[in-house]
């Protein structure tokens, strides 16, 4: 699969994840979110940006518990819950948010 952003062809795998992670831009994130029927509000950007930061350090998306705690610390305790994250990313923060953030899909029994 592929789509175009600014005249550039962006390839995704059969599940819609970026093939070349280095191609990621905010514009592409908007496009990927569109495919998920999600609008990139500032709340969603906060999560996506955190995922990208974490990925740069650890080469994997953060565990759900790590994510909720980090979000809680940064944005207030009421947002540091998986319920909040599922409200933002109904298909699951790990998979859906990773896709938009241009990260590989977490695999395994998750």
């Amino acid at each position: 699969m592929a789509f175009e952003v600014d005249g550039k062809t962006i390839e995704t795998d059969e599940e819609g994840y970026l093939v070349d992670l280095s191609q990621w831009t905010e514009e592409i994130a908007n496009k990927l979110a569109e495919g998920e029927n999600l609008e990139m509000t500032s709340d969603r950007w906060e999560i996506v940006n955190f995922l990208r930061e974490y990925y740069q350090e650890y080469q994997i998306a953060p565990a759900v518990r790590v994510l909720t705690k980090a979000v809680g610390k940064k944005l207030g305790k009421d947002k540091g819950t998986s319920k909040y994250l599922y409200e933002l990313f109904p298909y699951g923060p790990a998979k859906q948010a990773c896709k938009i953030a241009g990260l590989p899909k977490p695999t395994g029994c998750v």
Partner: protein
Amino acid sequence: MEGTKPFFAKPDHQKSLGFPGELIENWHDTAIGKMGDLLGKYRSFQVYLDSCVKCGACTDKCHYYLGTKDPKNMPVGRQDLLRSVYRRYFTFAGKYFPKLVGARDLTREVLDDWYSYFHQCSQCRRCSVFCPYGIDTAEISMAAREILDSVGIGQKYCNEIIGKCYTIGNNLGLPEPALRDTLEDLEEEIFEERGVRVRLPLDEEGADVLLITPSADFFAEPHVDGLMGYAMVFHEAGIKWTLSSYASEAANFSMFIGSYENMKKQAERIRKAALDLGVKRIMHGECGHAWRVAYSFWNTLAGVGHGADPNDKYAQELQQRLDPNFPVPQHICEFTWDLIQRNQLNLDKSANDDKVLTFHDSCNVARASRMGDTPGGQFEIPRKIIQAVCNNYVDMPRDTIKESTFCCGGGGGLLTDDLMEVRVKGAQPRMEALNRVVEDHGVTNMAAICAICKSQFAKVLPYYKMPMDMIVSVHQLVRDALVLTGQTNGEAEADPDEAQAEES
């Protein structure tokens, strides 16, 4: 379901497991050759193909059949996809009078059907319980996947994951620094809640116990709550334990694809970690199929337990090393139940009074292994643990639990988004049984001891109008009831230095 196919493995996923990258030219002869090879290797496989009398006992026993109503998802229908080809090439009648005995040539269409329907089987073995001959569809399904892999058609989900185990050490692809960071985070969380320094050690040489657990325990919910439970139980028992970053995975997906060679290679990673760390015991976290691999196959795969190859130096070394005074290998539930029986854990059941529990028997634990030293221990021990930590417990209807348990719908390598429809439909019998006890007994939560079950239920419960957090880990319930020695209500009341001193 007609036309259902999971994504194909990419050439590099295939090659790292020793399979051809894509469909090979002489796939027909290679597939038949592979079938012959497996018939020679596994006597059971041939017996299963020969002995079906079409009695019909299995027809309504498969959750995928019940959910999809597709006759090819009847266990006998699924077996016949392969049996018909077996008859054509390996039996006298099928070679000369194929039409009379339902024998057929292996064509591309047949191969496609295999790929589709042997990925609509979670190898849960429920049908084998009701078959008067004990025909095990799981074994036929594993053989079919092995044949498919040998001609270059693999499933992306399983094969990509096995490759990650080889390169990174776990299914998730969680590298050591991320694992370390996650464990430290969990230690901090326990300290904040309880005021006690409970450790989740990684790669600590000289520990007594190596804990092998599904990597989902580090990553997902409610799995991670169970992991905290194991750590707290070890802490209270005063046992030195460790996780390994080299073998940070209990799961062995090679069983799902029927590949003995890869299953051995995965098991040997755990053996290497055990030898390098110098442990005396290997213990298993809450993972269903991994417990089957460990309990039933580890002895010949890696030398855990009895039956190691006398010429296998490492297997012999491991047998010398492991302490025979404990079960080899041991399940975390066996360990916790033993402590509970000896009154070694201070449990406050009322901590779980907000819940009414039921227990989902995971298929590989229920029908392919055991716990404890009495028959049926794998059914009783988890239930006894739950009842020791919770006041309210009810079983689901008898024909849906214990040896008759229904699969969660995501086992056997089907826990992937590209099979979501099959997963939702396959979960239907379990969801109906659960719904029954919700309505009749006010059940609020279902506990399980398998990472696949937990993830599958978290995903499909909402499809059946039940909340995703209804599924809990057994050791999450233990954690919540366990009163730690020296526990306070939170960090503010605790003196960290004192807590540390106590520990050492």
